[in-house]
């Protein structure tokens, strides 16, 4: 019991942290996520120090400013003569807190305004931390939206097909087979071509997620349908029917309790697809957008094998993705338990 408690506590903390990161991304970052620095590409995370090169102790943490020495290997040398002292609540680029309050204070920064890169930079010298934080907003939204469409479509179609049976069942199953067999990549590109050439990033993202969700629901529908069929013939449902319960009652009272947990767990299993979809699409060069910060877009540079061997800090989004999926999973399990408790 304590173990479960610990797990739940951990999950809640992680979830709160993730949401906070998404909400406060500008406050927490030191540089704008989209700003490039072509002198600082693939720079490793800054080393935060208290001791300087002459052995003097500084009471405030500082970083040395760095210079590119070898572009081929992306090597940087610390300039020992240029110390950037870190301060809290410093002035930086202006932004709107929670999308409303115009502010320019940031949690950490340097007095001189020099970028620190606490988690290093990516291939065009953008701050990995800032991008990952900004990406949290986009990616969380996208994931939630994706699984919502997925769950809604899948459960609705599956339940209706299984419950109604007959020609409707047949038609819905044919449609789901058709959708499943559609070439998702091509569908995406074709839909893209239908839309105007100019497409803002969030619309492109919406299109991607929407398409993935619309192509992905049939397995869920099929599973739900199977379960409904199974339940329909289950003893207690037949008993309820025998006792004169009407369809709606049977569905809500006797089927939903078993259906909801199943749909929930199925949906959670599909969740990674929506975050990862963008990565896969990018790798296959069918990603829709060249710009914009989302975890998927950040992992695009996995195409460069050096990211895995040398520039590991570019895998930061994976950590965020893992945390998100872990939360979703644990919260989902808990939710399922709650569902079962209240409904049974």
């Amino acid at each position, binding site marked *: 019991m304590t173990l479960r408690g610990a797990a739940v506590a951990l999950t809640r903390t992680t979830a709160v942290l993730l949401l906070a990161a998404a909400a406060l991304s500008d406050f927490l970052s030191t540089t704008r996520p989209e700003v490039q620095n072509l*002198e600082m590409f693939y720079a490793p995370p800054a080393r935060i120090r208290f001791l300087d090169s002459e052995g003097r102790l500084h009471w405030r943490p500082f970083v040395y400013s760095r210079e590119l020495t070898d*572009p*081929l290997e992306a090597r940087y040398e610390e300039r020992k003569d240029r110390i950037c002292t870190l301060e809290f609540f410093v002035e930086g680029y202006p932004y709107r807190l929670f999308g409303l309050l115009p502010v320019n204070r940031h949690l950490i920064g340097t007095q001189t305004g020099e970028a620190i890169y606490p988690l290093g930079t990516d*291939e065009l010298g953008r701050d990995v931390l800032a991008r990952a934080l900004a990406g949290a907003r986009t990616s969380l939204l996208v994931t939630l939206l994706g699984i919502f469409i997925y769950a809604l479509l899948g459960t609705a179609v599956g339940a209706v097909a299984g419950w109604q049976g007959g020609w409707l069942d047949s038609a819905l199953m044919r449609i789901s087979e058709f959708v499943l067999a559609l070439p998702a990549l091509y569908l995406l590109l074709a839909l893209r071509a239908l839309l105007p050439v100019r497409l803002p990033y969030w619309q492109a993202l919406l299109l991607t997620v929407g398409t993935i969700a619309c192509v992905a629901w049939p397995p869920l529908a099929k599973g739900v349908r199977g379960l409904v069929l199974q339940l329909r013939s289950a003893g207690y449902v037949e008993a309820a029917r025998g006792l004169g319960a009407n369809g709606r009652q049977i569905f809500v009272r006797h089927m939903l309790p078993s259906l909801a947990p199943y749909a929930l767990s199925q949906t959670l299993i599909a969740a990674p697809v929506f975050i990862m979809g963008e990565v896969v699409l990018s790798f296959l060069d069918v*990603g829709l957008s060249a710009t914009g910060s989302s975890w998927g877009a950040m992992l695009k540079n996995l195409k460069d*094998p050096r990211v895995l061997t040398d520039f590991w800090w570019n895998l930061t989004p994976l950590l965020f993705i893992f945390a998100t999926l872990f939360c979703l999973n644990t919260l989902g399990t808990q939710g399922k338990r709650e569902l079962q408790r209240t409904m049974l």
Partner: protein
Amino acid sequence: MNLKFLPPSVFSLTVPSRFHKLRTMGIGARPALLAIAVLGLVAPHTFTVTAPSVLSDPPNRQAVTGTRGGNLVVAVSSDPSTFNRMLTSGVANAMIADRLSGDLVHINRVTMELEPALAWKWEADKEGRQFTLHLQKGLRFSDGSPFSADDVLFTFQVLQDPKSGAVQAGNLRVDGSFPEVAKADDYTVRLSFNRPVGMGLRMLDSIPILPRHLLEKHYANGTFTSAWGPTAAPGEVAGMGPFRLREYQRGSRVVLERNPHYWKKDRNGQALPYLDTITYLIIPDRNTEALRFQAGEIDLVSSLNPENYAGLRRAAARQNLTLRDLGPGLMMDFLWFNLNPGAGANGKPFVDPEKRAVLEKAEFRQAVSHALDRQGMSRSIYLGLGTPQFGPISSGNKAWHHTGIPATAFNAARARALLRGIGLVDADGDGILEFGLHRRPLELTLLTSRGNMAREKTAQVLRENLAAVGLRVDIQLLLPNEVAARFLNSFDYEAILFGITPTDIVPDLQTDLWLTSGKLHFWHPGQSAPHTAWEREMDRLTARLVTSLDPAVRKSAFFKMQEIWARELPAISIIAPNIIVGWKNTLGNLRPSILVPYLLWNAEEITKRSP
């Protein structure tokens, strides 16, 4: 064999001296004897010889030495779609089909000069319209059947027929029409063009001479395009190249074996090629190719991207590999704006007329060029292995590149000043310049092709650079064919970033780009009459370039064209990526070139020392 008998000049590559030949005669080299005979027949002629490397005897001796035997393992990115060089354009196809086929004359990929090949010498008339090519005698196709002028005639017949789908046919057309080809005798062919051809016979490079006895029936039956397709049996495919097809396993490998009838010999009189076989492994992913090269499974890599180069460099010394940076190649990415004043089928102009009025100003394009941080791009995108470019051709093209052209180098202040000068100001302070009567924000949509990481990154930096001077650019990624369809057919775009790779160093083969009537005059193709004064001047200079026989006149014409281009910037060149090649140190006689395929072009000379 004694080195001091070789002539000291001409790179000591191809031209054995007469003296040298006489010395080897005694050993019984038949081609040398034949050559003397031919020499006797055609010695007194009245033509002026324009080609610089015309020889007085068949060029079958190469100044190389090596040992016979061995298998060379290389990678290609996709399955071959045909073994007929005439039908292929992709690098992967050409890498294989080029080894199977021989051309009449050949461009030496290192000296960039035209060299004799199946035609051992040629003459031009005074006007430079008519060329007489003398074919080598006694040569055989790789299936052992003899080669003669009939095969050449057949080749040209097929080449000119649109039904055969020959990819290189356009190169042979001069002002829209093909040359007349006539056979003087079994070993002499005449090519007559309708105007003087300044570049000589360079367009004949890589045009494969096809065996009439094998393909004539296919041509007659209309099955020419599929005759040497991927399902062809190795015995059906024959050519004049150093290798012939032995085996093809789909998705896995293509194996070529040495052509026992090949005509070149090495300095010691040993028949080339040295290698017994070349095995092409089909590896679609470039990272995988680099890893397999590093693991020693592949003998050479023709084109490494900077990322893989960086990874391999550390392993190079340990693994006994040679990596070489050949400097900027001929490929460049261009950014251009749609200046086409026309309208689509629905009557809607391709570009908003007010916006086009801005794009049409040279100052605008100069400002854009000044806004681009090419050094920064070279550093971050190409890891320092790319060279900023400002003209229509890459600085890697040493023979033709004009170093004195005005460079619109990175200068954001200058860019802003230029934009202000043409009335583009940011009145509402949102960071975006406004244009036109209604002061609309100047926003442009840039199309670029997906699938090329470096180009996608270039587009992103470009966006940032232009935002810094007040221009808003949206990047849209499309399939390569989709981008091509937009700038070649439908013209509905505002700006495009796309890569152009010339196949040869001479500008003559790119007239479609220079001429206002050309289909590759990207920004405004197929004009009935030159739209602007500078384009009219470009047309005039192009005409001088392609028709003049005087190298100095040709050069000065093209230098002037480059000056105009660099000032008007109809298409803004950005960076020429360096060509990086690598090979195992056990290989010999490798002579890397910046022309495709970089390494394998002299496959017959490559030799493998047993480790």
